[in-house]
Structure formats: structure tokens, C-alpha cells
């Protein structure tokens, strides 16, 4: 089978699937991307460039769409050269919304197209208007509507879609939901597992918490309101006061991955450190970590905090659960899909730093009470999100779509 993956990033959601397919010598796996770094055994990378940059004069609602079209055109051109040499894939699996699958049906009208659908934007009821502190203007509402254009084009053009969670799938227009299967990208539960008694030592960062009994962890790509960073930092103030031996480890880059920057040019980290007085000898910002170090953090965690607006669920929460962490999560829809309060984790009010802190302190004070929850957290991941289970489902669906047995 000739499989073509599409993602601006590499390998993004597709490392395991693309490698698994590449292991079969009958398959040819090509991965078209704009990211130069990285390689996977057996996976042929096809680098393409955006056709050009969008113009500043374009209507501001259309700026990102222009970018999407230019990405799609860049990909089209690179692939057209391959096609001229005779390459026609049996299946295309692409990440939707950034323009890569958009023109594939024009280039390869007879090749089945599968898309990964992460999110459909709504002005109301999910991420955009979740925080009453940042209400939407009519202009925001209209802009958010237009943001869905490339996704709608992919929705109607594709033969089949995949969303990682039911919550995410439920964002898409009801007319398309039947087309979208829910299969998670998969959590590698073999690599990520509990390690009782693990201690956190990262020599290259001079971080040695081997003597520390209480480690509160927080992981996110950036530091921003979308993932509850401000209220988490506020809760850290309460936690450090109440638990004098507790340390806090924050993994992530000092940037905004989702949502807006602060108007004054400060990062949220800077802003929060200025407003919340903290004992910085017990607060450790690691920046982004290599995979093995990141897993060490999870394995050494006493309490892991995961907060999110109703938005795309992070891998980190599921990976923390796979490592047997006690997750204190926000009581928001994507988290509720996985965590049942008191059963396999704890749920707290997203907005309340005090309640987050109280819950974390409660867990730190009664560590034995959480043992069963930690076990069930790992079980939940093994049952519903483990790569071992998801990968065969993904491959089966891909093969079914490739064989034309899925009617668009």
C-alpha cells in the first residue's frame, strides 16, 4: 500500500502509525511536511514550502485562510512533480484545517482521503467565550465563524475522518459527525508507566529533588490562560505556604501556544511571577524537556495538575495518568470524558485557584487515599487510549478507507 501522510509538523500525531505501516515491506510511506527536523525509520519525508507568504492587505478574517491556501498550493506543487513521475498514493491521511488535504481530491481524485479533525471553532459554548474575563466582541464572533472555512472544505472533501476524543468530535457540524470516527492518537503505555519510588534528578539542569517527598507537576506546551496557567500559578502560592516541603515542577515553554498574548508584551510567566510572591527555591521551570526527562517528571509526580478550557485535550494529561499520576484536573468537558472525580483522579473548578490548591493540598496530606485512583487512572488509559489498542484500530480504518469500502 502506498500511504501519504500530510502534516505541517513532523511527525505530529502520526509517528507510531507511519512507522508501523513502514515496517511492512509491502508498504511505501511518504510523509509530506514543512518541518525539516526529524526522521522516522522507513518513512520518506517530502519537504514542501508554502507557495508564498500571505499579504498584509488581505481582510483580517481571511489572513489565516490565505495562509492555508498557500500551504495547500505549495504541497500541491511538490506532489504534482511526484505524480508526474508516476506516484499515486492508495490512501492519503492528512491533518485537517491547515490546508494540506484541501486540494488533494483535485490532484488525486481517485485516492481515498482520510483527515484528522482536531477542532471546529464556535464562538459560544466552548473555548472562545469560556473565560468571562475576556468576553467576545461581535467582530470576534464573526472571525471565529470564518476560521472554520478550511475545515469545512476538508470535511466535505474527505472520505472519512478521525477525531481523538468524543468531546472533540462533538464540535463538528452534526451533518458530518457520522463521517468522523473517534480513535485516539494513542498513548504509549509501554514507555510510560508508573515507577514507584522514582525521584526527579535532572543533572544537566542542576535539578535534584531526590530528597523531596512532595512534587506537584504541571505540563503544557506554553504558559497561557487556555491551559489555566494563571490560576495554577496562583494556586502554587497557596500550596507552597500550606506545604513547606513541597516543590513544584513546571514543564513547558514560556510562550503562548493557544490564545492571545498579553497586550503589554509580557509573557504569562513573567506576569504571574510579578503578581504572586513565591519561594522560588521550590518552584522549578524546566522549559521543554526531552522525552525521557519528561517521563521522569511524571513518574516522580505526587500530584499532577492539568487545567484546560473546553478545547483539544492534551496528551500530557493522558500520559500523566498512564504514569500512574494522581491528576487534579479542571472540571471541563474534555477532562470529564476521561476523569471521574474521586474514581481515577480529581476534578476542580477551572477558575478557582483556591479550590485547585485545596484539592492538591488534600491529596498531599492523604497520599494513601489516592492509591486506588492512581491505579484506575493507569487502567483507564490502558483500556481506552493505549497505543496498543488504538494503533490496530487506526490501521484497520486506514485499510478500510484505502480499499474504498468507506462510502464518502
Amino acid at each position, binding site marked *: 500500500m502506498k500511504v501519504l501522510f500530510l502534516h505541517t509538523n513532523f511527525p505530529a500525531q502520526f509517528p507510531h502509525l507511519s512507522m508501523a505501516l513502514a515496517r511492512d515491506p509491502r508498504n511505501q510511506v511518504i510523509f509530506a511536511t514543512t518541518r525539516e527536523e526529524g526522521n522516522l525509520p522507513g518513512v520518506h519525508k517530502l519537504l514542501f514550502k508554502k507557495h508564498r507568504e500571505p499579504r498584509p492587505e488581505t*481582510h483580517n478574517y481571511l489572513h489565516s485562510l490565505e495562509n492555508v*491556501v498557500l500551504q495547500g498550493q505549495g504541497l*500541491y506543487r511538490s506532489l*504534482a512533480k511526484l505524480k508526474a513521475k508516476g506516484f499515486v498514493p492508495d490512501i492519503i491521511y492528512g491533518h485537517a484545517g491547515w490546508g494540506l488535504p484541501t486540494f488533494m481530491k483535485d490532484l488525486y481524485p481517485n485516492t481515498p482521503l482520510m483527515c484528522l479533525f482536531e477542532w471546529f471553532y464556535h464562538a459560544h459554548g466552548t473555548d472562545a467565550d469560556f473565560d468571562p474575563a475576556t468576553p467576545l466582541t*461581535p467582530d470576534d*464572533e464573526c472571525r471565529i465563524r470564518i476560521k472554520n472555512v478550511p475545515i469545512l472544505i476538508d470535511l466535505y472533501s474527505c472520505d472519512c475522518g478521525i477525531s481523538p476524543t468524543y468531546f472533540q468530535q462533538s464540535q463538528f457540524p452534526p*451533518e458530518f459527525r457520522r463521517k468522523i470516527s473517534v480513535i485516539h492518537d494513542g498513548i504509549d503505555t509501554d514507555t510510560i508507566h508508573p515507577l514507584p519510588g522514582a525521584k526527579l534528578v535532572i543533572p544537566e539542569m542542576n535539578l535534584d529533588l531526590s530528597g523531596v517527598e512532595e512534587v506537584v507537576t504541571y505540563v503544557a506546551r506554553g504558559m497561557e490562560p487556555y491551559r489555566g496557567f494563571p490560576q495554577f500559578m496562583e494556586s502554587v502560592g497557596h500550596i507552597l505556604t500550606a506545604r513547606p516541603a513541597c516543590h513544584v515542577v513546571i514543564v513547558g515553554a514560556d510562550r503562548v501556544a493557544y490564545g492571545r498574548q498579553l497586550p503589554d508584551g509580557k509573557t504569562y510567566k513573567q506576569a504571574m511571577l510579578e503578581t504572586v510572591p513565591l519561594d522560588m527555591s521550590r518552584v522549578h521551570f524546566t522549559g521543554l524537556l526531552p522525552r525521557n526527562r519528561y517521563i521522569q517528571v511524571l513518574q516522580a509526580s505526587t500530584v499532577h495538575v492539568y487545567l484546560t478550557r473546553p478545547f483539544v485535550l492534551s496528551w500530557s494529561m493522558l500520559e500523566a495518568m498512564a504514569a500512574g499520576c494522581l491528576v487534579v484536573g479542571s472540571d471541563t468537558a474534555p477532562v470529564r470524558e476521561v476523569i471521574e472525580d474521586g474514581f481515577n483522579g480529581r476534578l476542580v473548578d477551572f477558575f478557582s485557584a483556591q479550590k485547585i490548591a485545596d484539592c492538591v493540598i488534600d491529596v498531599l496530606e492523604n497520599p494513601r487515599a489516592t492509591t486506588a485512583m492512581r491505579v484506575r487512572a493507569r487502567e483507564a488509559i490502558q483500556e481506552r487510549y493505549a497505543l496498543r489498542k488504538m494503533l490496530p484500530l487506526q490501521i484497520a480504518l486506514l485499510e478500510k478507507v484505502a480499499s474504498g469500502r468507506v462510502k464518502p
Partner: protein
Amino acid sequence: MTGGINLTDVGGPMRILFLHRSFPGQFRYLAPILAQIKDIQVAFLTTWETGEIPGVRKIVYRPQQGTPLTHGYLRGLENSINYGQAAYREASKLKREGFIPDVIIGHSGWGSTLFMKDLFPKTPLICHFEWFYRAHGSSLDFDPAFPLNADNEAEIRIKNSSTLLDLAACDGGISPTIWQRHQFPREFHSKISVFHEGIHTRMFKPNPGTELVLPHQGIDLTGAQELVTYVATGMEPLRGFPQFMEGVELLQKRRPKCHVVVVGEDRVEYCNPLPEGKTYKQLALEKGQFDLSRLHFTGRLSVEEYRRVLWASSVHVYLTYPFILSWSMLEAMSCGCLVVGSDTPPVREVIEDNINGRLVDFFSPGQLVASIIEGLEDRDATARMRQNARETILDRYDLQKLLPRQIAMLQQAVTRTG
């Protein structure tokens, strides 16, 4: 225009907001009749400055111009957004006055409907869905004279953007024909009801023995025994104008007394203009040899003049790419014309060959002429087809049947969300 149709009650007071770039567009019958009903308030947002309908509060919105630097694929959507924003601004004035519509019904594709759900989140939105563009299988790759390149194909995919947004956002949709609904992504088919706008069968009824005299156009065909008619908004390949004109040249040679009347403007409505700046009419007249004393171009006509042409027609020719079906074909049939139509899906949805009209190969002027001549020669055989044509319209496209159904649909939309 709505004479003879009585609707006095829609079950309580209602506020209706219409949106159409043109005025009144497809709502030419629905808007006026609703406006006459007691307890119904009708507002109509449009870009057209001219035209009024009694009882309809017309509000003009003026969209900004797009920038020519925008990516070519996105210019259409940029225009739509500008239309949508301009309509939003005017509609928010209505909202401030306290006019919250119970139902919004808008024509989709030009953008005016785009942001109505943001302004009136609780009001049901019904969209009129005319067309969804496909690079292959309908109008755009139909004519081998105009092949598509890769750039065209990609642009066509993006062209549907504002329609897709409306499809997802609306509470219900209307397409005028099954063929037109069939163009939309199948996921949305169940959301779209097929209702034709309706043909005014009392206005467009047969009137045998009409002679064609159009004083304003200086046309007097009194006594003409053979009159072939053709009607379109413009003169272009999409409606088979080049093929028709080739047919006319043949026809004039074979039927020395036959007159041809062409109604429409010398412009393109849907197709690209010719590169050398010529119109398709000029091109056709240069290419062929015509007896111009028997070929009459009327230009744009009033409804009464247009109806007179249909009344006097011996054979009416209607050719179209697989695209939106024109009202004129149905109005011709409603007048009892013998329609020689192209054997393309929108026409086949209405005409069955030799039953209520004739079907010919779109690309074959020879077949077209043979069929026209049969129609001219055998008036007895065609009388039955003419009658069937009228009955088809009465049965399936009659305004008197369709208007109550359209209104019932609006009421249902209000009740469902109310």
C-alpha cells in the same frame, strides 16, 4: 404579481427578515404575499437600490470593496465577508430598534447570510441554496471548448466557502430542483428541502393566436406562421447561445419563412467574457450567415412583453449546461410552449422527450434544427406535448401550490426553535 393567491393567516404575528443581494430575487412572490398578510412584518436587506414592494420594508446595505491583492481563490469569500458584514451592520440597527425576526430567510452564496446566527442566535435561519460548484460532473467541465486547468480546479473548491458556512450554520435549506440539491455535499441533503420558487401559472397561461408585436422594439411579426423563440438573461455558452446561433443559421436556410426572436441582453451573466472584448452575439453574427430580417434581438423586455413572446412562440428553445434551471423554461411551458430543450440533467428533471417537450443533444445544432422543424411541421402532434407541458407546471411548479408550502416551512422553523 400575487393576484389571485389568498393567504390571510399564518397563525399569529410574525417578523420575517429576507436577505438577498438582488431585490427581490427568488423571493419575488414570497416576500410580497407575506407582506400583505395581517400581523406579518417583512424586512428585506439587499444591495439593490431600485425597486419597492408594498408592505416590505426594504433596507439597502452597501458592502466594502475587496482588495485586488487578495489571493485569487479568496476574492469571492472576501466579497462575501464584506457583504456579510454590511448586512450585519444594517441588521444590528434593526435589532437595536427591537426588530428581532422570528425567522430569517436568505439567499446563500453571496455572503449576506453569513453572520446572521451571530447577530440573532435564536432565530431560525433558512437559506436558499442554488448551487454548489464542482470542478467535475456539472457545469464547469461540461463544454470541451473550455477545459479546466489545475488552478481552476483548486479555485473551484474554495469557491464554495461561504456556501459551506451557511450549510453548517442554517437551520434548514431550500433548493429549487432536485438536480440543484444534488450538487451539495451529501451530508447536507437531509437539511435541504426541494421547493421551487413557483411559477405564476395565472400570469403565464396559454393564449393561443397571439401575434407578436413589440412596439418599443420596433418588432411587428403579425402574420408570421413560424416563430422560434430563445430567452436568456445574457448570451453565453452556459445557456448554449453559440450552439443555438449555429442552429439558427441552418434553420433559416431550411425554413425560409421562419422568424427567430432572441430575448436577453448582449452580455455574459455567468461565463467569462471573450478575450478579444467581443460579445458572443457579435462573434456568432460574424461566424454565420444570417437573414437579419428574420432574426430579431429584443434586448431586455418587460414581463408583459416577454410573456407576449412566449405566447406567440411556435417552438421555444432552451439550452443549458448542467447548471441552475432558468425560470424562463418553466414559464414557457406554463404558457403552453413546445420547448426543445437540451438533454442535460436540469432540463431532464422537467421534460420527458416527446411527452411534454423535446430533448436534443446540447452540442448538436443539427439535432436541434431537426427537432425544431418537426415541431413547426406537425402542429397536431405537438398540441398534446404543449398541453402536457402546461400540466407539468401546474402539477409540480405552480406558485399556488408552492407558496403555502414555503410558508408552512417557515412556520415550522419558527415552531421548532420557538
